[in-house]
């Protein structure tokens, strides 16, 4: 055998310097983002004396679940010491109807704009998009006034309404762009077959919308769950979402700061978006990448 071989078959891959550099950067970036999470997890299992020793990267020597149970059931927000569990329920109460409604309305909007093309539809769409680009803060005070006029301020329906309204522009844009790529012949065929507005929407379009529904669900579920500002302003005392409760727990000023409890409460709050990303990450990419629908 000669050392010099003729090029033949699959081209061999070589590990070049630039490739090593890329991997090194990626590993560094991953570590950079994972490190805080690591610190949060280990801290949440430590006792306060151990934390006060100051070794924040070390594994817990005196492993304890106490901070978690405290965070869940006994942590104090101001005078109430019922833990973060109240906020969990509130967050679900807000998130589930708000996400469902905004997705449904966005889908209907996108469907109507793409296929039925109502007169002035483009104008409505433009105005809707414009709304998406104006900072939320601008709306806050007028919204407070408007909601209190119709007795929705500081109520559950009130905060849900706010989330639905602010979710609409992006949801409409998302679904409109998805439905625009659906061949219009499909819609025409369904019309000849006698399908009306709702029949075509529910029996034809929604079944075809799997990938984009997943994308919309991820955006809305995480978006509404992570919301702080609207929850603080519009939800009212009895319906404060988990994020606001968390803030209250962490910022309670009496006594020493219970870092372990704060970490546990924070992880609990972040759990829902975290699960959503882990479960649906694959779908998310697929939905974004899904181009034309092949029939």
């Amino acid at each position, binding site marked *: 055998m000669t050392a010099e071989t003729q090029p033949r078959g699959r081209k061999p891959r070589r590990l070049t310097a630039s490739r090593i550099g890329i991997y090194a950067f990626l590993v560094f970036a991953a570590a950079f983002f994972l490190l805080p999470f690591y610190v949060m997890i280990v801290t949440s299992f430590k006792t306060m004396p151990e934390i006060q020793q100051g070794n924040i990267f070390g594994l817990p020597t005196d492993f304890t679940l106490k901070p978690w149970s405290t965070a869940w059931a006994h942590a104090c927000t101001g005078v109430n010491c019922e833990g973060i569990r109240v906020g969990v329920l509130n967050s679900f109460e807000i998130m589930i109807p708000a996400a469902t409604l905004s997705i449904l309305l966005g889908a209907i909007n996108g469907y109507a704009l793409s296929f039925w093309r109502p007169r002035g539809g483009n104008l409505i769409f433009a105005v809707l998009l414009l709304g998406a680009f104006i900072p939320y803060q601008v709306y806050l005070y007028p919204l407070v006034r408007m909601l209190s006029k119709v007795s929705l301020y500081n109520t559950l329906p009130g905060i849900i309404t706010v989330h639905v309204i602010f979710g609409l522009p992006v949801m409409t844009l998302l679904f409109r762009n998805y439905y625009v790529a659906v061949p219009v012949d499909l819609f*025409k*065929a369904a019309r000849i*077959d006698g399908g009306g507005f709702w029949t075509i929407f529910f029996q034809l379009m929604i079944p075809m919308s799997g990938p984009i529904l997943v994308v919309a669900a991820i955006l809305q579920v995480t978006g509404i769950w992570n919301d702080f500002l609207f929850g603080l302003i519009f939800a009212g005392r009895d319906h404060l979402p988990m994020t606001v409760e968390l803030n209250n727990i962490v910022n309670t000023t009496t006594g020493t700061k219970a870092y372990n409890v704060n970490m546990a409460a924070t992880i609990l709050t972040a759990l829902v978006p975290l699960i959503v990303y882990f479960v649906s990450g694959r779908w998310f990419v697929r939905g974004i990448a899904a181009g034309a629908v092949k029939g």
Partner: protein
Amino acid sequence: MEPSVSVRDLRISYGALDVIDNLQLDITPGEFLVLLGPSGCGKSTLLNAIAGLIDISDGEVWISGKNVTWDEPKDRGIGMVFQSYALYPQMSVEKNLSFGLRVARHSKKDIAERVSRAAEILQIEPLLKRRPSNLSGGQRQRVAIGRALVRDADVFLFDEPLSNLDAKLRVDLRVEIKRLHQRLRSTMIYVTHDQIEALTLADRIAVMHGGEIQQLDEPLTIYNRPCNMFVAGFIGSPAMNFFDGRLVAGQDGPIFEGQGFATGLAGYDGNGPLPVNRDVILGVRPEHVLFDRDAAGQPAEVEAVVELEEPMGADSLVWLTYGEAKLSVRCASGKRYRPGDRVPIAFDITRASIFDTQSEKRL
């Protein structure tokens, strides 16, 4: 007899632009009518207007003796087949076929009967449980035809149904659509830009251009006696040869004087007596140019130079130059021609067309 489909004074405009203006069309029951034309000629727009899928600006659409101008597509008694198949991707073939019937709340028994009848006619019974994504193009289009079939429509509309298929399948399905028409005897309106489809399928062809019907006639009439230069040039492949010239008086009637040749016009199948001293265009199809041995001894025989030859199996196409003019000739294959060969040609005047240079209309 009352027409099956009647389009009266139809106008369709987008903004200030009239896509179709004052169009009239009557289709007799059981007729296979083909709307033929280049893209953008308004043929699909016309079909969509008949189907009720686009708003019209003025005029009326009548189907089976009923004014359906303001009716929803589903109430017009039509079935439609699209170029892109337009099958519902998330439904099985069976559900695709029965969708319209389910929407209209037909009984389960009725739906099953109609679906199985359509499936039998189109031989798609083995496919009923499959999804459209698991079907080939030809199978998909069969299902799409089946979906129109189950509606028991009076009128079937086809919007370029074969354009997405490969050449062989296209021929197969073309024959099948013709067979289907012979079996059902329903009125069919078929949009295409493919003249072979038009000529083979149609009882009558409406050649469209610029939103107007240029000529509405039986296929062979359209082919042999095109009413204007557009129809003459659009129908036939390769296109008709055109020669600029002038009609002058001769001993036995008018003579066509072209550039470098003249030919008598005895036997010309015109719309009336030919005028003289008029600029005209002589149109001769490639298969009506007498060539080589056939041309020998013919009056007005001239000599042309071979530019290139395209053998096509059954016959050959020879491209010639004659003075300034270029022309194509269809001849029996067998003898090969080389560039530069000089061969005699003559024109079969009985099957030629003469157009007025000004109006481009057939004389």
